[in-house]
């Protein structure tokens, strides 16, 4: 007997109880499930019908709206059914049980999207965008995922790939048609020019791509300063909970304490760090080392100091925020106008800090149009493509055979192809889908 691809089902909306729950079914058994479990059959395609859903024994579980989308014009490319029921826990459980007893199994995470990808409905970057869309917590993440879903990355990467293909065509023509007057025998100059252009495009993308990668993964904001400046108190204020220990003993914080927040539409990771000072305490010294590392990797640094003490600005870089804390204890006259003045303890000025962070992130993302890189996988692929391009440029300049240049270009193109999923089914897809985990 032929083994058919099986049919999957899953709760497509959030966990009940909720107003409604949507159950989705995809696969060849969809029509037979409609026939055996719904009060109306066949369903008019792409049309909302009011139906009863029945259990295996025939009792009505609930009534709701059902939409049947026959393949291949559906999300997964297969026959698909979506039913909206009342969002009770019991209803949902009984509904899934009924559907499974009619020939479906529970979908694994990401399986609907995977099927859509397999049916050629999405390229890899769009499939990833679906995951991002569902996971999005901030507005910036959402709008970026939407653009990626629309093909922003696919277009960009395949555009570069098309450039490479064009170069390959030139190189190959010069190799395979050496005797033809028309074949561009001197292709070196035009190819070199194209290679250089693409190279700088990739370098720019890798630089700008930092930002779009951050929009998805969250910006890193570091709270830094001397011991007892009030860093942990500030973190707790921003987090609106007691995330870090606060005492009046200098050197309280040793580990890096990270808190994830959505601020003004951006996802940010705020890190509280050990106070910076010379110390012989081994544990504290390690804390200071970690603090400096966090400072290094941060997209934005907040330098906190006690308003009653002078600012130690030797580590402050342009773009950093300097914050005077404990304004409640300080003489208002002595506080510098250049800095933000707050009291972490009373909460005075916290809104100003939030606004300042959002403003800085706004400046960072100001020029970001479409996303360029949103995952480490993309960055690595682009970096490898860049390495190949540089090899091609070197080989071209050194004047050693165009077959080497052509090979380099081909490899670069393949790297870009792995990003959109246009090569080597086994390895690429295996790697991508094993880390692909989304709620649908």
């Amino acid at each position: 007997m032929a083994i058919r691809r099986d049919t999957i089902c899953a709760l497509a909306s959030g966990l009940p109880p909720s107003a409604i729950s949507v159950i989705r079914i995809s696969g060849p058994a969809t029509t037979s499930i409609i026939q055996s479990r719904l009060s109306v059959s066949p369903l008019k395609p792409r049309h909302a019908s009011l139906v009863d859903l029945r259990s295996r024994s025939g009792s009505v579980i609930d009534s709701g709206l059902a939409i049947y989308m026959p393949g291949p014009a559906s999300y997964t490319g297969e026959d698909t059914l979506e039913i909206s029921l009342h969002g009770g826990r019991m209803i949902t459980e009984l509904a899934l049980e009924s559907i499974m007893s009619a020939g479906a199994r529970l979908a694994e995470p990401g399986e609907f999207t995977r099927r859509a990808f397999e049916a050629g409905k999405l390229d890899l970057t769009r499939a990833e965008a679906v995951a991002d869309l569902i996971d999005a917590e901030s507005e910036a993440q959402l709008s970026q995922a939407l653009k990626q879903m629309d093909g922003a990355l696919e277009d960009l990467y395949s555009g570069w790939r098309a450039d490479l293909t064009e170069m390959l065509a030139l190189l190959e023509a010069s190799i395979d048609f050496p005797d033809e007057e028309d074949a561009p025998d001197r292709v070196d100059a035009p190819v070199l020019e194209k290679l250089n252009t693409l190279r700088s495009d990739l370098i720019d993308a890798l630089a700008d791509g930092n930002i779009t990668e951050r929009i998805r993964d969250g910006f890193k904001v570091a709270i830094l300063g001397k011991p007892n400046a009030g860093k942990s108190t500030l973190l707790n204020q921003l987090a609106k909970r007691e995330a870090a220990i606060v005492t009046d003993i200098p050197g309280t914080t040793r580990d890096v304490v990270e808190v994830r927040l959505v601020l003004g539409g951006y996802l940010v990771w705020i890190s509280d760090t050990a106070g910076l000072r010379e110390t012989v305490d081994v544990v504290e010294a390690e804390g200071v080392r970690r603090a400096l590392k966090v400072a290094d990797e941060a997209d934005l640094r907040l330098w906190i100091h006690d308003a009653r003490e002078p600012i130690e600005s030797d580590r402050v870089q342009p773009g950093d925020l300097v914050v005077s804390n404990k304004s409640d204890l300080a003489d208002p006259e002595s506080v510098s106008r250049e800095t933000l003045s707050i009291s972490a303890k009373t909460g005075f000025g916290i809104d100003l800090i939030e606004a300042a962070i959002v403003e800085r992130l706004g400046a960072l993302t100001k020029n970001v149009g479409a996303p360029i890189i949103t995952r480490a996988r993309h960055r690595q692929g682009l970096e490898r493509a860049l390495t190949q391009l540089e090899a091609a440029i070197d080989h071209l300049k050194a004047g050693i055979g165009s077959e080497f240049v052509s090979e380099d270009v081909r490899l670069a193109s393949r790297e870009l192809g792995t990003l959109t999923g246009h090569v080597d089914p086994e390895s690429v897809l295996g790697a991508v889908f094993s880390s692909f985990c989304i709620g649908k």
Partner: protein
Amino acid sequence: MQDQTKFDVIVVGGGHAGCEAASAAARMGARTALITHKIATIGEMSCNPAIGGLGKGHLVREIDALDGLMGRIADRSGIQFRMLNRSKGPAVWGPRAQIDRKLYREAMQEEILNHENLTIIQDGVEDLIVSGERVGGVIGESGTSYAASAVVITTGTFLKGIIHRGAERIPAGRVGEKPAIGLSDRLYALDLPMGRLKTGTPARLNGKTINWDLLEKQPADDEPIPFSYLMDRIEVPQVSCGITFTNPEAHEIISDNIAQSAVYSGAIAGRGPRYCPSIEDKIHRFAEKTRHQIFLEPEGLDDDTVYPNGISTSLPREVQDAFIRKIEGLETVEILEYGYAIEYDYVDPRALDAGLQVKALSGLYLAGQINGTTGYEEAGAQGLVAGMNAVRSASGEPHETFDRAEAYIGVLIDDLVTRGVTEPYRMFTSRAEYRLSLRSDNADQRLTERGIALGLVGETRAEMFHVKQTALNAGRDALRSQTMTPNEAQKLGWKVNQDGQRRSAWEYLAYPSIDMAAIVLAFPDLANLSPAIKAQLEIEAMYAGYIERQKDDVEALRREEALRLPADLDYAAVGGLTNEVRAKLDMIRPATLGQAGRIEGMTPGALTALLAYVRRRPSRKQSAHA
């Protein structure tokens, strides 16, 4: 005397595919017959008398490495040897030779007529004998039935061939030869997917009437390099070709009469090759060009016929007369034979398996232009593989194939049976993913060993091959055993990493800036390696880095080739496939996942679905569905 109507293998057609097929089968010890229209046209070059070129030269070397005929025959008849792409690296050097048509034909006939295990029969094959599920032989127009366990058809452009020239229509296989009609009908009756293709040829000129003094000359290489690994020198005298160009006046004549071209009047349905367009095509499609290059190639040492390479045409005779005489050097030229286009039947090669057997009829093999290819080399390469597999099938053994990482022959056949053709298929180096290892210099190292195991290679070559292998191995060992510190290397003026690592002569040789001459100066012990061995090792070292990097790819390729798809796979049962992809899979029935991946229009998703399906299959079978 042996029965002249019963054989193990019958090859139909004495062209380039047929000769290689018959010879391969006979070399393997099968009782073989070659049945062809005319013994006198065995080894005839229908078109341009030249062998080799980019990709094509590679094929010739591979045929030779498997002890086939083409390379040796070309070495005995080549009158202008040139190594194309000398300015580039050796991976893309293309050995090519202008051939003396008569010398080639004579040498080929001498070889074929005196071949052990091979009987030559002059007859036209009109029909196939089918016994049950298998082919059982052929029937000649003489009325004779010839029995065999396997049949290889290599009838070139002869299936329902029609010559077009202006308004003229002549049924013919090539000029002056009748087409094969009965056999074509038979193939149609087998319900094979078939189509029409076309190709063309230019007029032939009388060299005595060409004004050579006006023209630029292209000489042969000073030191002609033979095709065959068995030959160390070319004895045939070498000649030059002339170069001239079309001009606006000639173009105008062609444009004014383009409606009379058979190609343009819509008389020809078949598709022609894009890379070998007729002159009317060139002028029509590249209207901005004011001239096109023409090579004037002598067809033989004692033959005044000249082949004007670059102006193939199906215009009427009087138009050919008019435009050709506008060309510099050809003002008073005499035309010996007019150019024409020929349209012929081909079988969609996707109807074949990778052994070149017709999937619908066991024991029947097709090779050469009948499969939609063009060119002697492509034909010869297929002939060799079809002949070999015909023998294997006749003796109940499974097919043998060459993969894409092993040989251009593998690339050629895989392309044909997987992707089919939309225009006459010719080989290019860019079709080979592993071009840097599939070089024309190392075809013997890639293939001769296998050829020996397959029974294709005779004793002389096997012996020579082993001697060369031993010398190469010794040379590699010598290069690896001689070492030097980077410090010493720097003193020689070599630019290498100063990392204190001792490196071998082999590793230094891999630097693009260090050549064999420099190595030998630095390591005097290596001086006694023979020049041929040194040259070979130098090339090897040059590509070693890239080839090392391709290892993973080759392994991945072979892994996918190892994932076999069952011949009876029910593609309707595999979910996630679009109807288009499903239909293609159903027709091509790829033998492996790797082959499936190369089908045009395959999506990565479809492949994943297939992969998941084959992986799931065995375990699913055990846990039967309730």
